[in-house]
């Protein structure tokens, strides 16, 4: 018998004619900022400043940015010591050199070592190197992450599955103003001779925020 067994010969609130519950959609009223976005967008089009196609293309360009771009930067730094030095000295210049459009983003690359682990947060809002890594994960923008990352970073890391020994200093970076941060994790042992493309495959978004470290495929399972 379909569904929960009751008959379907009368109207049900919240059920489609075929007896399925309606999925929630954009059912609530528009928020203030949604209304403002629509108003500004329509004005830009009406005044001939931008076309709908140009706006869509810009959204698509932002959506096309992904952590894979940052992973290529990290892999290049692992494979090329001179590039690594340029990345640490001037993150944006090094990424521009690889062809990534920084658009004024001022990137600071911070490096994990045997004695230092870096973690990035923005306690004031959700600053993130979007030009290089794409949109931040939802948890990065939550009050829980933003407050706990500066108060108890080791517990936060442990919840992500990363237990650090006391011999490692945790260095939290609160992205409070004009810089944006990327963590350059330590290159895993056992990757000697790997291609940059294979190395980049080890570098996840979470590694570049600092809540994870790269792992070789065989050590991921278990």
């Amino acid at each position, binding site marked *: 018998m379909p569904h929960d067994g009751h008959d379907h010969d009368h109207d049900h609130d919240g059920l489609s004619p075929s007896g399925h519950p309606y999925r929630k959609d954009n059912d609530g009223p528009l928020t203030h900022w949604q209304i403002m976005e629509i108003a500004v967008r329509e004005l830009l089009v009406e005044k001939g400043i931008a076309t709908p196609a140009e706006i869509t293309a810009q959204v698509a360009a932002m959506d096309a940015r992904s952590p894979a771009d940052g992973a290529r930067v990290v892999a290049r730094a692992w494979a090329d010591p001179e590039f690594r030095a340029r990345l640490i000295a001037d993150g944006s210049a090094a990424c521009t050199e690889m062809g990534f459009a920084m658009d004024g983003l001022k990137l600071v690359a911070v490096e994990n070592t045997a004695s230092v682990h870096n973690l990035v947060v923005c*306690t004031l809002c959700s600053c993130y190197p979007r030009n290089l890594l794409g949109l931040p994960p939802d948890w990065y923008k939550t009050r829980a992450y933003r407050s706990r990352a500066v108060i108890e970073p080791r517990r936060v890391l442990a919840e992500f599955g990363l237990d650090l020994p006391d011999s490692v200093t945790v260095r939290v970076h609160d992205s409070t103003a004009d810089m944006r941060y990327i963590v350059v994790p330590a290159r895993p042992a056992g990757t000697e001779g790997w291609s940059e493309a294979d190395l980049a495959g080890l570098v996840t978004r979470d590694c570049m925020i600092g809540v994870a470290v790269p792992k070789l495929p065989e050590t991921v399972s278990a």
Partner: protein
Amino acid sequence: MTSLPHVDPPAFPPPYPSAAPRFAPGDAVRVATGHAPGHIRTPWYLRGRVGRVERICGDFANPEELAFHRSGLPPRALYRVRFTMKEIWGERAERGEDTLDAEIFEHWLEAAEG
């Protein structure tokens, strides 16, 4: 009693230089305790805390002015300041020797002993 972190000065020239910075890497600085209305980029949890300048980030328009459609000029020197977790959270710190770096504008900083 303040707890100051170790800072290695940057081994490279700053990519975004500052015209006339008041502080240099390694200097001990105290974050102002004041309160001001508006768009402040100095987190509450760092006010009154003492750290060391880690690097000079450059000169940037003042966000407290920019947020109100003013020019924010002349630009202000921006620093990355490193604090120990012990300095920030006291005995409640998860591990006092761990550190935190934050970007603080010069007008929120005063020279400190250390």
